């Protein structure tokens, strides 16, 4: 063990950072793959179907656990078709622009009190800036495809994301006021003290608005007008095939996991135990923080799937109304409320 630590400290910083990135990315990619499987299984059961149950390993079906691997291999070997008159360079860059921010945001994500790749002061701002860049992948894909349906999808997506980003940003301003820091680690530490001390309670409206805006930002049902398969085929990625399509798919799921993780960090106390400060706190001392964080993240990841199986798609004007006329005023009012609570040291969150 000692030798290992010594070996680690002897490595150049660049190699250390690269290894840390791999340690974050590898589980994330596996999680993304099995999230797609979970989606098909869960929605299948909600609709009284079996979901995928054929592809397994070594001749065993294993409830279809081999399905994501089979899908990935299939997509990798499919031909990438570039439509006539498409802008080839932008057409191929668009998926990368879509997945890049979704992965880069994990750099400032604290998995435990000490487990963070880059402990930067302005972490929250960094996350917000990066999540706002995901829209470029969608817009450029829609434009470069040289297809009317793609362009329609891109336009819808652009308007929607700009609208919801403001609500999302204001919700985060509330968190920032409450925690008094832009550093994600410090935001979690400010919520110390168990279930009732987490920010979901004093910031309840912001919590709901942040998560719903997150659903809208990731273009998931019921806000999936950018894809809208019953109206505009598949929206911005209608012309994509093979691996280029797979990258869009990966980006969407990586974004969903990111939003779930951030919601868990900012409103559900991140890696902290929900039993803190209660009589049974010591029973759960052995549980590592990352397990709590994962459990909290899974709650929101499940909600994404549940929403998709439950709600019909919003009409476009309803989406705009919700974003501008409902969410925005509520967030502004609640920021004032939070500020007053903070100044008056409202028990027991801010004293």
């Amino acid at each position: 063990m000692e030798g290992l630590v010594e070996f680690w400290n002897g490595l150049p910083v660049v190699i250390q950072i690269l290894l840390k990135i791999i340690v974050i990315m590898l589980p994330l990619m596996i999680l993304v793959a099995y999230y797609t499987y979970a989606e098909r299984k869960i929605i299948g059961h909600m609709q009284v179907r079996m979901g995928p149950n054929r592809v397994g390993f070594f001749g065993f079906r294993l409830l279809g656990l081999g399905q994501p691997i089979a899908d990935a291999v299939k997509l990798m070997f499919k031909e990438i078709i570039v439509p006539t008159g498409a802008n080839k360079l932008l057409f191929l860059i668009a998926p990368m622009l879509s997945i890049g921010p979704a992965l880069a945001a994990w750099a400032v994500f604290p998995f435990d009190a000490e487990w963070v790749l880059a402990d930067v002061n302005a972490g929250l701002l960094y996350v917000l800036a990066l999540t706002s860049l995901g829209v470029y992948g969608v817009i450029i894909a829609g434009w470069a495809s040289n297809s009317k349906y793609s362009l329609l999808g891109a336009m819808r997506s652009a308007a929607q994301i700009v609208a919801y980003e403001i609500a999302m940003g204001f919700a985060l301003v509330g968190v920032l006021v409450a925690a008094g820091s832009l550093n994600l680690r410090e935001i979690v530490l400010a919520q110390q003290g168990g279930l009732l001390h987490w920010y979901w309670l004093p910031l309840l409206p912001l919590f709901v608005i942040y998560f719903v805006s997150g659903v809208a930002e990731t273009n998931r049902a019921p806000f999936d007008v950018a894809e809208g398969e019953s109206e505009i085929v598949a929206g911005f990625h209608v012309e994509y095939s093979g691996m280029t399509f797979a990258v869009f798919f990966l980006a969407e799921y990586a974004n969903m996991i990111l939003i779930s993780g951030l919601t868990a960090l900012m409103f559900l106390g991140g890696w902290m135990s929900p039993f803190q400060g209660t009589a049974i706190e010591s029973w759960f001392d052995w549980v590592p923080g990352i397990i709590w964080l994962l459990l909290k993240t899974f709650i929101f990841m499940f909600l994404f799937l549940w929403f998709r199986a439950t709600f019909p798609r919003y009409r476009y004007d309803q989406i705009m109304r919700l974003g501008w006329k409902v969410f925005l005023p509520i967030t502004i009012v609640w920021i004032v409320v939070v500020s007053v609570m903070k100044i008056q040291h409202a028990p027991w969150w801010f004293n």
Partner: protein
Amino acid sequence: MSFEKFLFYLFAVFLIGAAVMVITRKNPVHSVLFLVLAFFNSAGLWMLAESEFLALALVLVYVGAVMVLFLFVVMMLDINIAELRAGFVRNLPVALVVAILMVAELVMVLSPERFGLKHYAAPAPKPADYSNTAELGMALFTQHIYAFEIAGAILLVGIVAAISLTLRRRPDTKYLDPGQQVQVRAADRLRVIEMKPEEKA
């Protein structure tokens, strides 16, 4: 050359290259995308100057929102490039005068005699826990509060003006008030009656 210096020159070269591309590309969508690249690189430069708040705000506001709307508009418009280029020669003299004036001003302000290290010493690097955001907020809300509030009021007037310019009453739309929509109950619209089956003669 230290790594930071290398980064500075990297960002600077990309910034200038992207800025040149913005004004030379024929396709306006390409120009907008190069402008996005230029913003990114200037954000990188600001980051190197230890002003992380400005750098991230630049990405968030300009790249994340303003340029998206720019792209939106540019993609929707069917811009006739020949028409745009038509006035080039006619406008060239005025443009040249403006360009030369600006270059002259920049040279006067930024020349080594007036802007060298001996006039403005390099600031000492801040410790790692120094929060640029907090300092900026403190300065804005204490020292510069009036300027800040006035800027805010001007922006508000701008918003009101923009909305009132685009707002129009259209009595012919079939818009439904969502408030009334959700208050509809089945009992108001539907009557279930019981009756005996009609017998056919």
